[in-house]
């Protein structure tokens, strides 16, 4: 593989007081692929995400993000909002929408940076110059596109907080996509979804990868999602990487079966890793 990875994590270490949450973790995410980060609760997955997206500063380690243009960014030195501007956009485990704003407004906020430039820091916007009106119309179209993709177009003018749970999850992904990422980081997007909704999610994520060429980094417990759509899986346990590889390798890796499930009953473990709907 000659293409450089979209994200490389090298020797990442984070401590909270005496607790080592992530310990010397290194992995890479290839461009245009879905990389999943799995592991039992408390393995440090969300902490890794928080480092990548600038909410925590790692104690040790280097996080390099490369755009398709070739520009590269050292994420551990950047503020969270600059990381997002560079093209790493995330969703949250506990959904974080702007609940009092309407669905479409949520998507407009996501296009803030672009619109802000188009409005020449509000001057052109204030005068309603064509330059801004054009950009605004484009932004609305983009919002409409993602609402259609996520099946939310009928709820576009409702308060985001009033949507049902599954719709809020989809809206969060639509919002992240409106921000124009080249690496999309999803923190448990399938949590709380019913099987039909998770199936829809799979299709959405695959199309984001295939049609839009966007790399995805995924934390997920739902194996039916992970095993079906991931190109590569990285398994964490207690802050350490214990395995990495394509789904077929990982699911038969005895180390993973032991550590991830912590059960003797190998049959159940394997069944879960096959993605038969059971939840870890």
């Amino acid at each position, binding site marked *: 593989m000659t293409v450089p990875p979209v994200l490389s994590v090298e020797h990442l270490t984070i401590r909270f007081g005496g607790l080592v949450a992530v310990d010397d973790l290194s992995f890479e995410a290839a461009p245009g692929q879905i990389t999943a980060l799995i592991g039992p609760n408390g393995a440090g997955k969300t902490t890794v995400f928080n480092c990548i997206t600038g909410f925590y500063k790692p104690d040790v380690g280097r996080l390099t993000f490369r755009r398709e243009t070739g520009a590269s960014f050292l994420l551990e030195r950047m503020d969270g909002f600059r990381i997002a501007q560079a093209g790493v956009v995330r969703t*949250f485990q506990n959904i974080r929408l702007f609940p009092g704003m309407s669905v479409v407004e949520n998507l407009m906020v996501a296009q803030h940076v672009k619109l802000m430039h188009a409005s020449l820091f509000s001057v052109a916007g204030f005068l309603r110059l064509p330059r801004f009106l054009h950009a605004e119309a484009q932004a609305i179209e983009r919002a409409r596109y993602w609402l259609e993709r996520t099946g939310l177009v009928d709820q576009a003018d409702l308060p985001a907080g009033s949507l049902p749970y599954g719709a809020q999850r989809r809206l969060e992904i639509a919002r992240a996509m409106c921000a124009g990422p080249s690496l999309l980081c999803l923190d448990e997007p399938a949590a709380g979804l019913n099987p039909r909704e998770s199936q829809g999610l799979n299709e959405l994520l695959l199309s984001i990868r295939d049609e839009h060429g966007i790399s995805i980094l995924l934390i997920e417990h739902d194996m039916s999602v992970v095993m079906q759509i991931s190109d590569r899986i990285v398994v964490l346990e207690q802050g350490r990487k214990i395995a990495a590889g394509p789904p077929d390798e990982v699911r038969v890796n005895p180390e993973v079966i032991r550590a991830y499930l912590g059960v003797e009953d190998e049959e159940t473990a394997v069944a879960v890793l096959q993605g038969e709907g059971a939840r870890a």
Partner: protein
Amino acid sequence: MRLFGRPLNGSVRTFAPGGARVGNFRGRMAYFLQQLINGVTLGATYGLIAIGYTMVYGIVGMINFAHGDIYMIGAFVSLVGFMLMGTMGITWVPLACFLVLIFAMGFTAVYGWTVERVAYRPLRGSQRLAPLISAIGVSIVLQNFVQLAQGARVKPLPPMIRGSFELSSSGNFQVTISYLQIGIILVTVALMAGFTYIIKFTPLGRAQRAAEQDRTMASLLGVDVDRTISATFVIGAALAAVAGLMVTLYYGVIDFYIGFIVGIKAFTAAVLGGIGSLPGAMLGGMLIGLIEAFWSGYFSIEYKDVAAFGILVFVLIFRPTGLLGRPEIEKV
């Protein structure tokens, strides 16, 4: 306007003007020591008020804006108490002080309880600003109630506790610590000890700490959250009353407006020490008192409030959780 040019809100009376700046080392040390004593006394009162802010903020998450006025009420109730002692013929000062202490704590606590019950409890769980606006309204009501009931003029109380120890003297400048200052510091220490005991070892304290951590969970586990919050207001008001009593004795003058600026400074103290932390409140109070005393003693009395707020801003920028506050990890 009202706050300035009156010897109410600072160490005016204890502030030795220019002549005190003795040139030699001993003189300078003595001057320093005197400011230290004054600052600690002032800080003790700020600390007692700050506890009320910090406890309420810890549990309910609101700035009890009216707390400064509860302190003012405490000062007035104490003054009325002293006059009552006079009419009842209780003239032995320690007994009078003790009885007034009980009197003021009791009646001021009723104010604290009522304010919470009437103006804050119905707003629990509504938007963030509603209780704050309500609290500002309560503050205005209390000030104007006292102004109407007791008149707008400054109320003087002749000094009751006289006498002081002379710690050292050099030339024309003596370092003194008055009996009253000793009393203030001792009462504060005793209250702090008692209070720490309540929080650490009694069921009420446990309930308070639980409610502070997670109100919903505490109520699910059988803690009567409403009662715990009421108790918090009652304790806070009682401590503020003690501060009011001390200030009445120390400065000898009070009016209906003293609560405002002292309240702000006490809140500043609570934030400085780390809001939610009781030792922090005391420490913050001490620091604000010391800053004020030293600023008045060495620089200019005019800008002492500026100094206190300036330091608050400084601390918050470099240590946003205050000095003893737990550092918060942002939950994402």
